């Protein structure tokens, strides 16, 4: 099925990046360009995207980029938008960080910037592990997933960044998946109109860490949503809105079995039943919380 996006050029991504084939981060970056337009300054923290942009002094992103140390993205963006304000420039500042940079090493500065309600958009491209260093577990890796540092499957659940960020009471929090580009772009456009701290966590299924065929990235991104493993929601001014693609998750009976999402990934190849149940409970709890909020 065509999404109606083919052929649409995005100036956020110039030809010739160093991304792997089927890279979900490249997909997300293209959508950012389509939704936010040109007037963007970006802070990229350590991760695949520090590499994807290619070798300096040239850059394959169509944005001015400040590459920065792992834990410093939200802080640098705080200084950046304040500088633009002093220079009377209306620029959308965007932080681009992976799940490790967000859930683990960069969490203090993320939380600090959220508490101060800094005026920028924070994008967490969540591929659920440290993919740039070869696929080690992060705080965002889900239960049972095999990574290079959890060869026996991760024992703990994925850190609930969505709820943690909601608890910061910032003006805008959303989740998205590269499997549903229109939903993501709508959210980016809405976020652009909001003042203050905005957080969007984008599920970016990684063919190399999740072990599926690189041609299937979008499909896996969809399966995550269809099986309700990954919610598509948006919280603005305290109001929760569940995207159409996720509405069926509000009732347990209408959810597609989680197995359909897990079985296409190599990292869940040998998942014991007990861990499967744990994951199912994780999804049930997730939706119970979302329902209780709406």
């Amino acid at each position: 099925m065509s999404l109606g996006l083919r052929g649409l050029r995005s100036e956020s991504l110039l030809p010739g990046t160093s991304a792997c084939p089927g890279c979900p981060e490249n997909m997300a970056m293209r959508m950012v360009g389509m939704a936010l337009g040109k007037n963007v300054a970006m802070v990229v923290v350590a991760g695949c995207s520090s590499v994807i942009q290619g070798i300096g002094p040239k850059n394959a992103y169509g944005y001015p980029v400040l590459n920065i140390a792992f834990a410093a993205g939200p802080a640098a963006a705080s200084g950046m938008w304040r500088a633009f304000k002093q220079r009377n420039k209306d620029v959308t500042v965007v932080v681009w960080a992976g799940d490790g940079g967000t859930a683990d090493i960069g969490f203090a500065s993320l939380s600090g910037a959220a508490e101060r309600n800094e005026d920028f958009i924070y994008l967490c491209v969540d591929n659920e592990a440290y993919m740039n260093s070869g696929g080690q577990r992060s705080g965002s890796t889900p239960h049972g997933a095999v990574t290079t540092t959890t060869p026996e499957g991760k024992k703990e659940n994925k850190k609930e960044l969505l709820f943690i960020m909601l608890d910061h009471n910032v003006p805008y929090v959303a989740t998205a998946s590269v499997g549903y580009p229109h939903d993501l772009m709508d959210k980016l456009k809405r976020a652009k109109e909001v003042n203050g701290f905005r957080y969007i966590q984008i599920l970016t299924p990684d063919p190399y860490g999740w072990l599926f065929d690189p041609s299937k990235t979008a499909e896996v991104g969809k399966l995550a949503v269809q099986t309700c493993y990954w919610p598509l929601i948006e919280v603005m001014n305290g109001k929760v809105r569940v995207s159409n693609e996720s509405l069926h998750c509000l009732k347990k009976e209408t959810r597609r079995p989680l197995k359909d999402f897990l079985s296409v990934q190599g990292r869940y190849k040998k998942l014991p039943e007990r861990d499967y149940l744990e994951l199912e409970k994780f999804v049930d709890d997730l939706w119970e919380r979302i329902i209780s909020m709406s």
Partner: protein
Amino acid sequence: MMKIISGNEAVALAVKLARVGVVGIYPITPQTTIIEELAEMRARGEISTDVVRVESEHSAMGVTLGAAVSGVRAFTATSSQGLLYMHEMVWWAAGSRAPIVMVVATRAVGAPWNIWNENTDFMSERDSGWIMAFASSPQEALDLTLQAFRISEDPRVFVPMMVGMDGFILSHTKTNVYIPSQEDVDAFIPPRRQPYVIDPETQESMGNIFQPVHYMKLRQSINDAIADSKDVIREVGREYEKINPLADYKTLNVEYKLEDADYAVVTMGAWSLDAMEAVDRLRERGISVGLYRVRYVRPWAEDEILRALGDKKGVIVFDRATSLGRGGPLYLEVKASLNNPVKGVVAGLGGVSMNKRDFMEAISTSIEEMKRGSFREVTWYYPSEVKEVELGTPRSAI
């Protein structure tokens, strides 16, 4: 205008006079009153500086760097553990060649906890790629901070600059300080210049992966900019004398009664004044000694040092810092510049106070040793009243 203020107040005034755009701040003793003062200035409406109260020193430098590369003048201050926590970003700022000014109110580094003065925190950043000056009075803290904006934003430099001052001894002690007028400072510090600005209009990017040879070239360019900044520093110093008639910044470092001296003492920071008094007294007793005060750790003024100290019979370097297992960093630097005998004395760590008499004793004993021709290269000096202190040795595991 003369005013009785502390070193920290002097620094805050310099930030105000330099019309800094963004300050990223996090409290740590003994730097804290700098940021409190700035916050109050902001609350009183005296400055339009955006004061960002962040959640850590790592973020303080992150905010400062983000603002600096986006085109505004930026400042931060820290101490001790805070500087160490910020260390990664200190390097990131240097590698980005972002003009930034930072003040370090020096303090010992734990463990164990110790809030008193020592210069090890400051000295441990000397490989990071910043220009590094060290004040010996609240006046100098103000002067050097103002000059730091000029120096770091000079197109021949474009490297961040930090100014050190002894925690509590300068940061919290009030003395008479000459404060230049706003008009004079405006004339002295031109609007911010920098080689590249993150801006959708210019599309500059910074910091992505470099090929090895480009990386090495960049490192060399920072090295050369720092090494070559000596002329800029002297030039800025001479110009500064126009806005502070009492100032003398023609040279990087400062000489005291050195010309006719056989022996030289090298110091840095606040205790230099005690050491100078000791020199006066020793001279009264017929000991031919002078003093050399290091004001710039980076760039290292090898030319000035050779000229001032190269012909001395002996040079005694006092360090309020250590490279543990070796000697004091200042001693190592001085020794590397000279061929004549150099002795290092580690003293005053973690707030152990050194008065004039202690300096007299340490200097005269060192000179005696050097005269005899056999001297310990590095000694740890304890003032007479604490000499008997002993630390229990850790018990063996077996």
